[in-house]
């Protein structure tokens, strides 16, 4: 190989290295710029409200229900549900079970997008008078997690215009576990004797809500 060819090849390699350094420099510059912009544009998140600030201390009595199976019959139908004495976000007492009336209980997690879609439906159903007479409706705020979106849950219930009763679960989700929650939203229908009529994991439309509430009334005889 001639010296001229070798020199040309070396020159090409040097030019190539210069190009690679340039591209690498541009990439590093972009990353540094991104970090700078991020630091300057990111504000502190509102995590002033902790789980401990929100969580309740509900008292649970009775045997817990097994977790709702993903498919097939619910083995807990007809068995006694636990009774719970707790409070809402303001500390006002709220109880589930033992009221002597059929009850419809919905477990909601504020971070859950399905719950976020469901709660306005519930509000519209309540405002339209969809809850049958004699049925007590209660929501359980569960899945408390300050690191997840849409925190805190009390602000969410208020923003959505929910005016019904809310029982706040504890930080461990004990009420949800006692009712065998498998996923949110989670519905439990109880008859007047506090026995399980049905449990459903998932979103319900207003017609299904009415049907579930009426099933609780029908089972109450």
């Amino acid at each position: 190989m001639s010296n001229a060819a070798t020199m040309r090849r070396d020159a090409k390699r040097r030019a190539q290295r210069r190009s690679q350094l340039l591209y690498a420099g541009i990439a590093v510059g972009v990353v540094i710029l991104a970090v700078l912009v991020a630091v300057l544009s990111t504000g502190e998140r509102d995590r002033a409200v902790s789980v401990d600030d929100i969580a309740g201390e509900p008292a649970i009595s009775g045997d817990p229900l097994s977790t709702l199976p993903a498919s097939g019959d619910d083995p807990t139908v007809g068995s006694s549900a636990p009774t719970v004495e707790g409070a809402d976000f303001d500390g006002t007492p709220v109880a589930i079970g033992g009221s002597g009336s059929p009850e419809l209980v919905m477990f909601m997690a504020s971070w859950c997008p399905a719950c976020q879609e469901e709660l306005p439906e519930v509000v519209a159903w309540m405002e339209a008078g969809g809850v049958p007479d004699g049925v007590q409706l209660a929501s359980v705020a569960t899945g408390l997690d300050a690191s997840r979106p849409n925190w805190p849950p009390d602000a969410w219930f208020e923003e959505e215009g929910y005016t019904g009763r809310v029982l706040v679960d504890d930080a461990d989700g004990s009420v949800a576990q006692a009712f065998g929650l498998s996923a949110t939203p989670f519905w439990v229908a109880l008859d007047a004797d506090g026995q399980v009529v049905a449990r459903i994991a998932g979103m319900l439309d207003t017609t299904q809500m009415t049907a579930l509430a009426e099933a609780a009334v029908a089972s109450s005889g």
Partner: protein
Amino acid sequence: MIAVAERVFALLALVAIVIAVATALALARRRVPDWLRDDVALPLATAIAAVATGGSLLASEVAGYVPCVLCWYQRIAMYPLVIVLGVASARRDSEVWRTALPLSGIGAGIAAWHIAIERWPSLGSEVCDPVAPCALRWVEEFGFLTLPTMALIGFVAIAVLSLAARRSPIHTGREPNPTDTAGSLTDPTSTV
């Protein structure tokens, strides 16, 4: 600190959108510049895969965001791309698109479905798993950049860059270089 990291990754995703669109336009016009094809496309695709991998590990291991099943499927597609593209970049393997495209295509499809479930939970199972729900938006920057959205951008950018790196008369508008016919390994100096 996590919030700053999320913003950094979101900004880099915006940069990746620009890169993907510009590269796609060059491919559509069949005018991929030599510097992009020979020197930039594969290292950039590798960097995007590496940043996406680093971001997903940061999200799960540092921020504590539990990956859902769809996140795992996207990881399965993205993580190998770091090695595949990294090796191809070092070897200047212009044929790596044959591996990178299926991986990024599958990943992009899963990411698109994940985005749809995030936006419309009723499309999916209509429930939230208490531990790792796929509909949960752990991150949402600039109103639209969620984790699967950033993953989708990464997959698309990698796909178009790996296509831009290939030496083909279809996309370059030039006759293939004789040195390319021996296989995927090409002489890096042949087109400079």
